[in-house]
């Protein structure tokens, strides 16, 4: 399995896509900190301050989706499957694991930027300061959300197999389906991957789910979609 991980890692880091997502992630982190800590008024509660440290897990969902779907778009999945010495499901599992690892690295980078920029700015706000425990919990939640989102995105990419279609579907679900669901069943949104990732990364607070519960919800989605993707990968043709 280690040879599959090594090969997939080489593939992942030898295009400029990873650089683009790293820059995008850092840019979003900076914008989020400025928007929450400087432009949204007074933050006098811990959850509000935690929001300044939150990241955007959907970015990692996109990272996994675009990267894995691109394997089929550029027909790079077939040569990998032909040399991997394991069945296609194992090759895809290795690919998803590499997206989890790179998701962790990208998440660490953006979270470090968020924390480094936000903590000095949050010191100017009234109310209780964030303890190191609070910050650690937010960082852990963010990293978990990033890794799970990257895995979920990679699994979705393997199922959808088209980066453009995948991104369109993702945007429609995030910006149309989820708000519609929210209108019908508000707490139901928390059970979607987007809602759960938002709670886990502290973008949303005061919800019906605890952070830990949101983590389990997102993990359940991730495991289920990944299993489906691996099973389907073994049965479908490769172009």
């Amino acid at each position, binding site marked *: 399995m280690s040879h599959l991980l090594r*090969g997939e890692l080489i*593939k992942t880091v*030898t*295009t400029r896509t990873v650089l683009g997502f790293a820059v995008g992630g850092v840019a979003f982190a900076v914008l989020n900190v400025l928007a929450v800590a400087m432009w949204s008024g007074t933050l006098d509660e811990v959850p509000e301050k935690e929001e300044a440290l939150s990241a955007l897990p959907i970015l990692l969902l996109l990272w996994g989706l675009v990267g894995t779907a691109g394997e089929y778009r*550029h027909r790079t999945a077939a040569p990998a499957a032909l040399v*991997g010495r394991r069945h296609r499901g194992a090759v895809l599992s290795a690919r998803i694991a590499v997206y989890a690892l790179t998701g962790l690295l990208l998440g660490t980078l953006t979270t470090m930027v968020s924390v480094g920029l936000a903590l000095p700015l949050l010191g100017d706000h009234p109310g209780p300061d964030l303890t190191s425990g609070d910050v650690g919990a937010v960082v852990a939640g963010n990293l978990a959300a990033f890794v799970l989102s990257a895995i979920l995105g990679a699994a979705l990419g393997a199922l959808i197999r088209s980066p453009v279609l995948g991104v369109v579907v993702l945007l429609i679900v995030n910006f149309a389906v989820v708000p519609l669901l929210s209108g019908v069943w508000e707490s139901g949104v928390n059970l979607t991957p987007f809602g759960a990732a938002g709670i886990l990364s502290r973008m949303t607070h005061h919800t019906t789910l605890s952070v830990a519960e949101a983590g389990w919800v997102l993990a359940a989605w991730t495991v289920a979609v990944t299993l489906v993707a691996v099973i389907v990968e073994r049965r479908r043709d*490769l172009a």
Partner: protein
Amino acid sequence: MTSSRTFAGDPAAIRVEGLTKRYGRRTAVDDLSFTVGSGRVTGFFGPNGAGKTTALKAVVGLARPTAGRAFVRGTSATTIRPDARLLGVHIEPCGAHPGRTGRAHLRSLAALAGLSRRRVGEVLELVGLEEEAAKLRVGKYSMGMRQRLGLAAALLGDPEILVLDEPVNGLDPQGIRWLRTLLRDRAANGGTVLLSSHMLGEAAQTVDDVILIDRGRLVHEGAIRDLERSGESVVVVRTAEAERLSGLVARAGGRTKREDGDRLLVEGLGVAEVARLAHRDGVLLEEIVQRTASLEDAFFGLTGGAER
């Protein structure tokens, strides 16, 4: 190459039995059966859209057959453990990300295959991709360079069996000659090559055996020499005494046809027999030559391609 490697007891390198592949209502490959012998270069020919690539994908395990089976060294292609040392595959396009360099593409495949990084340099040199070219992103490659990169990927594991889809596409004459030599050398050392092409004339110089398909069905399988012989040859004779020679040929059991005034086409007799008849009866021949039907003629005859 390490030709002594064997993977199972099947004497055939590749065996296809009743392979059918349908996409919705369209049947791309229809009940196709053939065998690829070990140590041979086998050409897999057919017109565009005949189902060659689909059949090759089923042979290497990328496409699942709707019916029938394909075996590589006796193991079903759907269950075989992919191994770059057993099977090297190049199916167009080359399967490299346009944003990745050629070298990085090969490095990733070598790692996936459990091969050493050194092998990347070896195959790059083997296919004639210079160091500078290997550092370029694949998106900037010419078609010939992509083709060479695809071949390099197929050769990474120094495989026992090579399956190549239209390998001469985009190669310049030097590249075609290089590939021909490479494939012949591999066969001479016990390797097996299955290559598809729609350019029979070019590939015929490389192959030992021929599998010809049309509309997804097998129309001919055998040695290339048999295919060459299957095209009917004629003896072309130029003489001022065409009428007299026609009579002699008819009495000897042959048939004649007039072509371009004094030129006579003789069917059913060899050039030596025609010359002997003319000599015996004192018919002066100004020219006598055997015209062999080309492989393309045989190809069109078998596929009906000339009428399309």
